[in-house]
């Protein structure tokens, strides 16, 4: 014994084994099926989009953290994939590069990197391109077109700093019946036509690359929740409050407002609730705060969708929730054991 070095450490001497890279890596794994489904639906363009955005995010992260290699924590990879999934599949790649750079540089690195960002970086990137390129980000392409694995959508390779070409003619050539170029939410808003729950669950609708199949996203989220890599309370709060709000509106005017099920399954609510609202750095830590935060996001999503100029409200609802997080945390401090009046 005495010949050997003895280590002095402070208790506790055991650890759960969970680490930041483990959590982040598992989130990445859980998103791979969604990516796969997206590529199967939209073909080469979606693949190029996802790879470009992720590569941009990783490169930006590496570039802005020259002193320490922070790629090992996998958080930049999550931002990249998540951002890619929220963009339209035929989004021009140069715009995707802008989105990825903004997400990491302005959304994250500027604040001090992992854990210090007040807003979800992927959403910061998306909000930027939504404001900068409003047409490109609402140009949708049909899923399951015949040539999706042999040719790119013309908009994908738009020359840098150029606006994408018009693809109406190209879409007609694809021979996809009944493609309207509008998302289910837009069709509801402007034409008062709601998509069927079956289509929304299985992804047979027009949407961003990763927002199509609510069922798949739910399954991937369930994996994360069961492995305890995600706080299950946040998606439950977001989806629950969104459904309740939608239900209340439908009670008031059933002819105009859609069913809660449509609200839950359409647009980006599912991926937003499961992957974006749950971003640990930007969500509250207190048990009560988590429910309030989720509740605000759900309600705001429905209100923006119903009364805002945009068809989709998840992004801004989550950013608003992020902004409120420090305040929520501050006012929902847990009652310390042995204090307070409810127990003697």
């Amino acid at each position, binding site marked *: 014994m005495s010949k050997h070095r003895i280590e002095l450490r402070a*208790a506790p*001497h055991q*650890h*759960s084994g969970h680490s930041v890279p483990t959590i982040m890596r598992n989130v990445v794994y859980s998103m791979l099926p969604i990516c796969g489904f997206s590529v199967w639906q939209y073909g080469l363009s979606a693949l190029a989009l996802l790879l470009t955005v992720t590569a941009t995010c990783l490169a930006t992260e590496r570039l802005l953290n020259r002193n320490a290699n922070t790629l090992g924590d996998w958080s930049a990879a999550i931002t990249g994939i998540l951002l890619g999934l929220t963009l339209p599949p035929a989004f021009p790649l140069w715009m995707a590069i802008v989105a990825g750079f903004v997400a990491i540089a302005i959304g994250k690195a500027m604040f001090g990197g992992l854990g210090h960002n007040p807003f979800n970086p992927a959403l910061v990137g998306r909000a930027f391109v939504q404001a900068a390129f409003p047409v490109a980000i609402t140009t949708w392409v049909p899923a399951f077109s015949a040539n999706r694995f042999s040719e790119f959508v013309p908009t994908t390779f738009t020359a840098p700093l150029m606006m994408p070409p018009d693809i109406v003619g190209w879409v007609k050539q694809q021979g996809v019946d009944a493609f309207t170029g509008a998302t289910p939410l837009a069709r509801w808003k402007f034409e008062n036509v709601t998509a069927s729950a079956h289509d929304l669950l299985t992804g047979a609708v027009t949407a961003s690359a990763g927002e199509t199949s609510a069922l798949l996203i739910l399954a991937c989220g369930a994996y994360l929740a069961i492995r305890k890599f995600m706080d299950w309370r946040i998606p439950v709060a977001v989806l629950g409050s969104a459904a309740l709000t939608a239900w209340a509106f439908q009670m008031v005017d059933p002819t105009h407002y859609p069913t809660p099920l449509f609200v839950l399954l359409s647009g980006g609510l599912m991926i937003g609730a499961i992957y974006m609202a749950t971003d640990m750095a930007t969500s509250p830590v207190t048990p009560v705060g988590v429910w309030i935060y989720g509740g605000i996001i759900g309600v705001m999503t429905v209100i923006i969708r119903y009364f805002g100029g945009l068809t989709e409200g998840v992004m801004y609802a989550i950013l608003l929730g992020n902004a409120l997080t420090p305040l929520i945390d501050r006012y929902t401090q847990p009652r310390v*054991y*042995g204090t307070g009046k409810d127990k*003697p």
Partner: protein
Amino acid sequence: MRLPFFNRTPTFDHGIHPVYHKETGHLPVRRFPFAPKLYVSLEQHIGKPAIAVVSVGQEVLRGELIAKPDGLFSLPIHAPATGIIEALEPMPSDNGEMEMCIVIRVYEADTQEVQVRYPHDLENLSGRELALVMQEVGVAGKGGATFPTHAKLIPPNGCTIDTIIVNGAECEPFLTCDHRVMVERAQDIMEGIKYARRVCGAPRAIIGVEDNKMDAVAALEAALPADGSVSVKVVETKYPQGAAETLITALLGREVPAGKRSSSIGVVMNNVMTLAYMGRLLPLGEGMTERIVTIAGPSVERPGNYIVPLGTPLRFLLEYVGARSSATEVILGGPMMGTTIPSVDVPITKGVCGVLAFGKKDATPPHIYPCIHCGECVNACPKKLNPTQMGLLAAKREYDVMAEQFMLGECFECGCCSYVCPSHIPLVQQFRVAKYFLKNREKVT
């Protein structure tokens, strides 16, 4: 969140489920040999150190008083073996400081029976007189806090004690000595409860045992007194179930008010082994000369529970149980709250419940990531503090804010926050530093 319509095992909120490694729980307690020299520390309890009453060169018999208590809040020390006093010298202790020890060279040919006893007639004593007799036995809290047991049992002025809680939770991983005591010495525990109830005047006693020790529950139930004053309650296996606050909440649904002792809500808590030794030694008038220690860990070849004479140096102890040469970290106590020792010359004292040896496997300290605000620590803290905020504040040395706004003083350093932190931030370690800083600044100003 406790749901009223589920009849669940009583427990507390939050906490963690570490890997328990209770492999030694089925091994019977074995007696440990005497080391050639015993180093008997004078500071084996919280409170004033004992005062040595022997001189170098003097011969002592096992059980003989070798140090007397310094006032009520102190304990005597008895010779753990028959031998000769070789020296009175400072030796390293588990907290890194040198502590005065009485060094006894053990007579090898002696049978080492307990030869000196100080019996009293216990029947006609009042509660307070009984407490003073208890002090002579020298039992300190065996869970690790080493609070003098007699002092704990005397109700403070204005408090009535209605319940004694006997802590058999043993929530620390690896440790099984309390488990074995409950299985093998249930009768002693009942005796100890009887005396403890006489001192503090409590009408009932509840023994709380985690549900991973059902054989201990069976042994205790078989030994319960007929009058129904003592009961055994099974609680959920969860760390830190064995902390005073959490076990009281689990068993009684009461919370100990912040900054106060459990006696303020009428509860006294004792460890099972404390009361087992009290029940065994008090009627005989015998002093504490040994205790049961769990010796385990991946680097120990013959792990188990051993009756170890007080003052046995760890060097001897580890050699006897076959510590592998890979052992780089030796912990006194459990892996969640125990301390690593700076030297293998540290002797066993009354508060050591476990000796664990860990190997090189986990020697590299993990990379510390920034806090990602996952809230795991908030959901683990049994005191419902906010370790996330306190950790961020500690990094900036805002110790006053931690104490004033986030109730740092309520932290009892169970280590759940550091255990769950995916960023490997040393949260409880920082809190300890903060508390130490504030305490010492108070002393100075």
